[in-house]
């Protein structure tokens, strides 16, 4: 049984026909062709599929498109302002926080939510808050550095 699911994605009103089982990540990738959001494990462990739903980071492989009906969704494609990267994307670039890049969209989305929810951040907190995102290349050091570097920029202190 299919029905129409509508939501706002990166500021645009969108609609698509979905089955009950259609996942949010399938909706984004297959219906809207927003393939920046990745499917890594499809078992809610790796975090490559993290997007923001109503300002909160979620694993879009473990959310039904129907559950996001009417929601405000932001994906990695919605962060940059034209050619100007979001401060978190810029910090990832500056700090060489990626190698193959597959986990990066989810890392960036989780990292932005983390900064939004923490007035202060230290390395231990960043590592704990990154538990939902796996990276098989970097060893995490530069990702942690990038998030710590982006925090004051996003908070407007730098």
């Amino acid at each position, binding site marked *: 049984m299919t029905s129409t699911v509508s939501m706002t994605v990166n500021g645009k009103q969108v609609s698509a026909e979905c*089955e*009950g089982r259609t996942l949010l990540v399938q909706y984004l990738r297959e219906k809207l062709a927003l393939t920046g959001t990745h499917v890594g494990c499809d*078992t809610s462990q790796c975090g490559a599929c*993290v997007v923001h739903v109503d300002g909160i*980071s979620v*694993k879009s492989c473990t*959310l*039904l498109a129907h559950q996001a009906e009417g929601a405000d969704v932001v994906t990695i494609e919605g962060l940059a302002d034209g050619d100007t990267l979001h401060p978190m994307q810029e910090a990832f670039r500056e700090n060489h926080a990626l190698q193959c890049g597959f986990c990066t969209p989810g890392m960036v989305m989780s990292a932005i*939510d983390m900064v939004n929810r923490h007035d202060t951040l230290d390395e231990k907190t960043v590592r704990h808050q990154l538990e939902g*995102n796996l990276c098989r290349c970097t060893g995490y050091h530069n990702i942690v550095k990038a998030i710590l570097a982006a925090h004051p920029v996003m908070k407007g202190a730098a």
Partner: protein
Amino acid sequence: MYDFNYRKASSVGDAVSAVTGAEDGRFLAGGMTIIPTIKQRLAKPSDLVDLAGIDGLAGISVSGGVVEIGGMARHAEVNASAAVADAIPALAQLAGGIGDPQVRNRGTIGGSIANNDPAADYPAAVVGLGATVHTNRREIAGDAFFTGMFETALEDGELVTKVSFPVPSKAAYMKFPNPASRYAIVGVFVAATAGGPRVAVTGAGPCVFRVAEMEQALGGSFAPEAVADIKIGDGDLNSDIHASAEYRAHLVTVMAKRAVARANG
């Protein structure tokens, strides 16, 4: 994943009639367990009835020495609640150790206890604090709620509306997490309650259980030394690739000791 009908309920009554009227209906709370379960084809419901649109199921309140958490309250909300952290810090801390941030942003207390995963964290708090589970039909004592592996006292069409936790004089939860999933290999919740000390163990056996011998010893002296030499039998404990039954039995004593020390601050 096999297809199913998605329904969004507008009230508890609407949700119950949608589930009971379906061929094989299931409630959908946060979806952090049921969606992966359906993906793995371990469940094949005909209908999923979403509880997220029902007003009044999600609040958190503290008054008169009782913390009340709505069935649809997310783990992240419990973790971030200043009122919970003030009344029962162990409960806020437990919620902050479930899964990962994105799982905590979606997962709910009602969904967690209704599922009763043997390695879930919340059952330890419900039993360890002597909480009461409120449903759309009745109140169920925490001690009577969890009846076996993935089994609870909930009947068809019955859903968790809230859980009330009496505030203890002190409490703590210590878990030895699986490093990949963050599920408890062993988690021990200890509390000094009005009815005496309680020790609840999750992760170790098929279902959360209390350790009477430890509770008795803590009644004499609420100190880590009181439980340090109490060993539990490994006969009924879980054994898997992550830990043998013997190792889990050992961890129960270690986590209990650490939890008591932490409760004493």
